[in-house]
């Protein structure tokens, strides 16, 4: 068990001075990730908020080697880095054990980079892929993605008088990764930092591809006060909106089962992106039904794999 004090005392490998917004969930995720991964790590980042805010030339927020290639190919790029490492190990040109971590937002992971991710995971490269899922294309100004939840108002699924935001439910990327027969797949939330840290540790200990999907609250895109990021990340878990679970050795474990499930409205109506749903109880019911269906399926999977 890592304490918060221990984490705070680790070398700062993702440093301050980056240009992320106040309250950005993504930077909290990266900070925690790097505290666990440590110095012997190579990062490959997809084009997106985290890359843009951390690498504006001639500055960098990274105290580890960092490579950015393009938007849709961070997994493929990392597979090349990892292959080079294996080739150089064989030749004895390198001896140290190195962690390879690729990351992308939901745009670079669920959508445009899905094929690249799927290929890299199927090929079995020794790497951890972390998706910071802020549920829309935030870097380009809040456009819908396949991770955007039903009903959400985005700039390409605007809530109008006829169409009330995004009319499709989100894609379940975490389960798509489970379907790749990976040894370790998890969902996490920055509110449950200890759980996330353990998941990163587990993933990095595995010799093979692993995947962690982390909910990444976005004050600008979701429309809330920046002080509420962690609170929202917690509410997402407590409302079943974002279950915290892992798939490990062919077994599902739901890490957090809220004793008292909070009303979904508590999560939705803290955010501007859902405010138009206040007058649309039927749509809220539809979203609730979907969330509960997914939660129940997850419970069944957990039970089935016992």
């Amino acid at each position: 068990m890592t304490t918060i004090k221990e984490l705070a005392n680790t070398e700062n490998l993702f440093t301050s001075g980056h240009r992320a917004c106040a309250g950005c969930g993504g930077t909290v995720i990266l900070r925690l990730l790097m505290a666990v991964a440590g110095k012997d790590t190579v990062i490959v980042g997809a084009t997106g908020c985290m890359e843009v805010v951390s690498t504006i030339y001639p500055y960098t927020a990274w105290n580890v080697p960092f490579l950015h290639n393009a938007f849709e190919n961070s997994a493929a790029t990392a597979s090349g880095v990892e292959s080079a490492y294996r080739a150089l190990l064989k030749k004895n040109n390198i001896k140290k054990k190195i962690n390879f971590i690729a990351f992308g937002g939901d745009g670079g992971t669920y959508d445009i980079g899905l094929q690249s991710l799927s290929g890299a995971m199927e090929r079995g490269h020794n790497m951890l892929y972390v998706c910071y899922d802020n549920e829309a294309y935030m870097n380009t100004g809040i456009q819908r993605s396949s991770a955007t939840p039903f009903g959400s108002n985005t700039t390409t699924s605007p809530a109008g008088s006829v169409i009330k935001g995004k009319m499709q439910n989100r894609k379940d990327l975490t389960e798509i990764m489970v379907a790749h027969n990976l040894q370790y797949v998890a969902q996490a939330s920055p509110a449950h930092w200890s759980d996330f840290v353990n998941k990163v540790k587990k993933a990095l200990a595995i010799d093979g591809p692993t995947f962690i999907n982390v909910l990444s609250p976005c004050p600008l895109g979701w429309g809330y006060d920046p002080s509420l990021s962690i609170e929202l990340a917690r509410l997402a878990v407590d409302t079943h909106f974002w279950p915290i679970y892992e798939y490990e050795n062919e077994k599902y474990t739901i890490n957090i089962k809220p004793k008292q499930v909070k009303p979904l409205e508590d999560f939705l109506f803290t955010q501007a992106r859902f405010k138009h749903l206040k007058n649309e109880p039927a749509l809220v019911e539809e979203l609730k039904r979907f969330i509960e269906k997914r939660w129940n399926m997850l419970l069944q999977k957990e039970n089935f794999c016992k």
Partner: protein
Amino acid sequence: MSNIVAKTGNEAMAEAMRQINPDVVAAYPISPATEIVQIFSTFVSGGKVDTIFVPTESEHSAISACIGAAAAGARVMTSTSSQGLALMHEILFIASGLRLPIVMCEVNRALSAPINIHCDHSDTMASRDAGWIQIFSEDSQEAYDQTILAMKISEDLFIPVMVTTDGFIISHAMSRLEMYENIDVQNYIGEHKTPYNILDIDKPITVGSLVLQDYYMEIKRQQADAMMKAKEKIKELYVDFNKKMKKNYNVIEKYFMDDAEYAIVALGSTAGTARYLCEKLREKGERVGIVKPRVFRPFFATEIVEILENVKGIAVLDRSDMMSSSGGHLFNEIKSAFYRNNRQPAMRNYIYGLGGRDITVGDIEDMLKDIKNFAISKEKTPDIKYITVREQEKK
């Protein structure tokens, strides 16, 4: 020491890759380059190379993985063709922009639509502005030699290189190949050179930064400058290759050009057909010559003008069309190379062989007759002709 064998273009390129023994090959099969990847896979599975082979799920991921591997200090190669090269397009610019040495064995094939798997140069030409060095090969021997040479060029200049052959015409045609001993290839290419290494965790660097208005232009200017300087260095490396490997290659090949009145300029396999014709015509006393640019990027404009300026007429053969209404790629390069030159020979563009349409000795002979008439005539239009094509009847 060398061995004489019979190999297709694809086999020759795969053999060159084997002898280079790269650290990483990331590739995706596509006709007519599929065999290169297949043959190389057998070298990997049979322990003939030390390479880590990354069989990606697309060409886009193949070139992306090449970038990752090259940035990690590995010697890297790939292979593709046509739609595959087009799918790589976005990432080609990143490979050159990050100054990564990568060698690609590329087999020229038409681009869709309509879909067609046969030879033309549309794919390579569509990548001409991607900041890669581009080298054309006439036959298996050139494909083999230039693949080995390309590794040296790429690692000396930190510019990625694509070496091309003509789909099926060369890629699948068996011909005589003189191969070097493995050790000679290894000695020639030498130790792998890398511009930087992201596996050096003690010296962490950030590669692929976001560069805005304040620095972007300086970085691109440096890249352009590197390509300008590359011209002299590529020439030197050809000379060095000839010396070490006992060959006689140039960046632009010329045949019978010393006293030629008419010249044919062609890339790749067609230059061989044209040379055969030229030898026959020379026996009859006709003063015709052939110019075969091997290196298309960077473009050796001054050199090509020097070779061509004293002829009466130039037939520029293009196996691709820019679809700009101004002809093919080679024609446009040569035309602009002649701008402000004192001597201005007549020049006509012949677009031929799209989608693998045959080009025969007779076709080239007709072209020569045409360029002679064109040079004599006062009419200088049209300067673009599509040959061996069934033209639509005018209604």
